[in-house]
């Protein structure tokens, strides 16, 4: 099976752009090689000379040669990286093996003077064919080239311990044979494409071999020899700039020399001098240009390294100074970063233990302080597995921290630029004190609720008893004083209840679901029905959308606003109360409750939503001044805002915004 490992032994990583380009080229080359083989076969089938030999005086590409190109091209197509499906693998190996077989059988025919009958198997060729020693038989150099190309395809992914790929050396042989023949055709030198009196290599066979060899090399751009060529280092740059010049320029200069000599411009000595001088000029100039390019690459590399070093120092400074614990691990759970805050918060340093042992090694428990935290569910374990965790709460206790601590942990996976998981990071802080403060606050409100209410009950109770004793003979002034004391006690009780409810509202867990405001408003109106009493109320209920939120809390918001509207329209006949929506920012809904009541002075609008803030005297309109504070707190917890508009005597409008319910989801 082909190895799918991407280990690279070059000093520098391959340039990703070059890698993808050469992969594309390899694909193209494999297609062209297979297609040209196919086209020549068509030429044989329909006897089209131009397809068989390009020019009439040239030798034909033999049918076996064409068939071998189809097989080799197809085999290479199947072996493209990232496309090595297990299903096509045996098939592509079989094709490559066929190519080797045909190449070696043809060689044996030459070597031992046999005729195995394979030459004319596909199509018959006449005995008088140009440059052909035995009809239909491919040239010996062609057969040798197929031997190496086929072998290269067969062992394309074989790699030695030192990272060498034999396939690349093999295919250099067939590439050279093809290139040699091409140069022979260009120069008109027969021995370069034909050995002795044997059959010669066809022109398009030479091209196809050159292309096939390049395609095979390009198919594994980040391995072996080719990795040097595609590397992003200085060596890569040099190889890419010098190699094409080294191959093409001498060939071109040689051609020029021959052409000049044949035209009679100069003799042999001058010709040699011409080649020597012009190669000196071309290579020196090109070498200088390359050296400059290399220097630029080196400078760029140094700059990048400097930048990286600076980034590393910045990161180091951040990690060592922040209060949050930061721990990074690779996918195997080996700790890569364990900053000083982490050491302080956990009370332990990085240990060399496997992720499955983390919970035991560091004493992680669930918030109940008893159940050991399952190691595989720890935020860091989930992060190195590719998961994200937000604000997970856990308890930590070990010999170094016997009282235990509460941690709040957030975890994220770490991926490299190609999205491959490299590990995970967790950031955490010690929230023990916050927890403690919350507990104290709860104890405080419990004692307020219990102990502060008792004396009030007693005051009211004993006033009542006193009234009963005095009833027959007490004068009206005494009765009024007693009623006032009792009223005050009652009011104090209400204030305490409301304040506790308000503080609870800030702590209570939110249950977010889709809330239908219309049905919520109906419920509120049913509950407040008795408040309407003698009041004549005209309701105008507009379209109300569904929103995301906690139904019980939102019910309290509507209930407070509607109750206020009813209260402050008491002097109106009829009272008009309007509930509807108004356009807002995208994703938000703005809901308003409007009344035609007494309104308020906009000068004091800022005080409206404060705790215990009232804009009316108690005798005018009763109230504790906590209702709108509750409204604001709830709306804020939903991520919304509250505001109000009014003018004295002309009614008031209260607005609040909420996130709109997402389509479809709950």
């Amino acid at each position, binding site marked *: 099976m082909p190895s799918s490992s991407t280990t690279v032994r070059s000093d520098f990583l391959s340039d990703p752009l070059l890698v993808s380009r050469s992969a594309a080229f390899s694909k193209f080359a494999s297609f062209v090689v297979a297609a040209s083989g196919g086209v020549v076969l068509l030429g044989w089938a329909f006897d089209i000379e131009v397809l068989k030999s390009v020019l009439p005086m040239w030798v034909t590409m033999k049918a076996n040669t064409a068939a071998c190109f189809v097989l080799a091209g197809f085999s290479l197509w199947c072996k493209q990286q990232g496309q090595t499906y297990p299903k096509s693998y045996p098939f592509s190996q079989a094709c490559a093996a066929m190519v080797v077989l045909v190449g070696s059988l043809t060689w044996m025919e030459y070597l031992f003077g046999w005729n195995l009958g394979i030459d004319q198997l596909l199509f018959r060729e006449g005995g008088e064919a140009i440059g052909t020693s035995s009809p239909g038989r491919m040239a010996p150099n062609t057969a040798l080239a197929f031997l190496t190309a086929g072998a290269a395809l067969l062992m394309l992914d074989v790699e030695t311990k030192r990272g060498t790929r034999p396939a690349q050396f093999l295919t250099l042989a067939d590439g050279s044979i093809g290139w040699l023949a091409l140069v022979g055709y260009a120069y008109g030198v027969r021995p370069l494409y034909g050995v002795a009196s044997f059959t010669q290599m066809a022109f398009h066979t030479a091209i196809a071999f050159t292309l096939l060899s390049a395609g095979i090399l390009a198919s594994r751009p980040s391995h072996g020899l080719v990795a040097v060529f595609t590397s992003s280092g200085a060596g890569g740059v040099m190889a890419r700039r010098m190699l094409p010049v080294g191959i093409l320029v001498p060939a071109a200069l040689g051609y020029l020399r021959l052409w000049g000599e044949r035209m009679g411009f100069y003799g042999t000595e001058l010709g040699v001098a011409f080649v020597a001088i012009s190669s000196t000029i071309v290579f020196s100039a090109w070498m200088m240009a390359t050296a400059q390019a290399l220097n630029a690459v080196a400078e760029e590399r140094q700059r990048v390294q400097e930048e990286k070093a600076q980034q590393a120092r910045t990161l180091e400074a951040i990690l060592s100074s922040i209060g949050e614990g930061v721990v990074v691990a690779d996918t195997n759970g080996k700790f890569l970063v364990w900053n000083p805050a982490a050491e302080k918060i956990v009370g332990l340093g990085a240990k060399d233990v496997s992720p499955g042992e983390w919970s035991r090694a560091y004493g992680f428990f669930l918030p109940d302080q008893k159940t050991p935290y399952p190691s595989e569910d720890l935020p860091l374990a989930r992060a190195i597995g590719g998961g994200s965790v937000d604000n997970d709460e856990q308890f930590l206790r070990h010999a170094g921290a016997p009282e235990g601590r509460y941690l709040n942990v957030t975890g994220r996976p770490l991926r490299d630029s190609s999205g491959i998981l490299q590990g995970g990071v967790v950031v955490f802080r010690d929230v023990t004190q916050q927890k403690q403060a919350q507990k104290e606050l709860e104890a405080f409100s*419990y004692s307020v*609720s219990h102990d502060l209410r008792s004396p009030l*009950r007693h005051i009211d109770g004993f006033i*009542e*008893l006193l009234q009963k004793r005095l009833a027959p003979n007490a004068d009206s002034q005494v009765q009024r004083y007693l009623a006032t004391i009792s009223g005050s*006690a*009652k009011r104090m009780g209400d204030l305490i209840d409301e304040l506790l409810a308000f503080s609870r509202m800030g702590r209570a867990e939110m249950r977010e679901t889709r809330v239908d405001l219309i049905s919520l408003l109906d419920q509120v109106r049913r509950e407040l029905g008795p408040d309407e009493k003698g009041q004549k109320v005209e309701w105008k209920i507009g379209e109300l959308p569904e929103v995301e939120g906690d139904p019980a809390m939102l019910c309290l918001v509507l209930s407070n606003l509607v109750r206020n509207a009813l209260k402050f329209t008491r002097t109106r006949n009829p009272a008009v109360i309007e509930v509807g929506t108004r356009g807002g920012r995208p994703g938000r809904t703005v809901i308003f409750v409007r009344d035609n009541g007494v309104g308020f002075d906009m000068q004091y609008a800022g005080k409206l939503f404060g705790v215990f803030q009232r804009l009316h005297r108690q005798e005018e309109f009763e109230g504790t001044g906590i209702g709108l504070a509750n409204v604001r707190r709830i709306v804020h917890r939903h991520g919304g805002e509250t505001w109000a508009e009014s003018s004295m005597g002309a009614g008031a409008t209260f607005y609040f915004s909420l996130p709109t319910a997402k389509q479809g989801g709950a």
Partner: protein
Amino acid sequence: MEELKRILLVEDDEKDIELTLEALAEHKLANEVVVARDGAEALDYLRRRGIFTMRANGNPAVVLLDLKMPKVDGLQVLKEMRFDAQLKAIPVVILTSSRESGDLEECYQQGVNAYVVKPVKFQDFVSAIKEVGIFWAILNEPPPGSVRRSR
């Protein structure tokens, strides 16, 4: 004649005792009220120990139990009663100032029969006591072993 059954009131605050008795008296339910001043005393009464060794036989028809008390608090009394085969069937009504939902939940977990938050307004308190008293001490058929008396 209506049957009147004994009520055990467990309350540490004497003002609350007075007000509760006053409220019970308004509904002519005060005669058979036994008062325990804390949880320990209540358990002594129920188990006929300590100063209550000599008391007459029989369980009260209902226990009116405050939560916040010195020594043994109301929740502890409730728990012990529910673990005691002799006492587990006695109806228990929590009478408390606390509105905290944690208490409420815990009490129902322990199988309380009713939970009343004492209203600040005395008249409301009187009617609450009336409802509780009439239901548990007159209408409800107590478990076997409770004291019955005609009046």
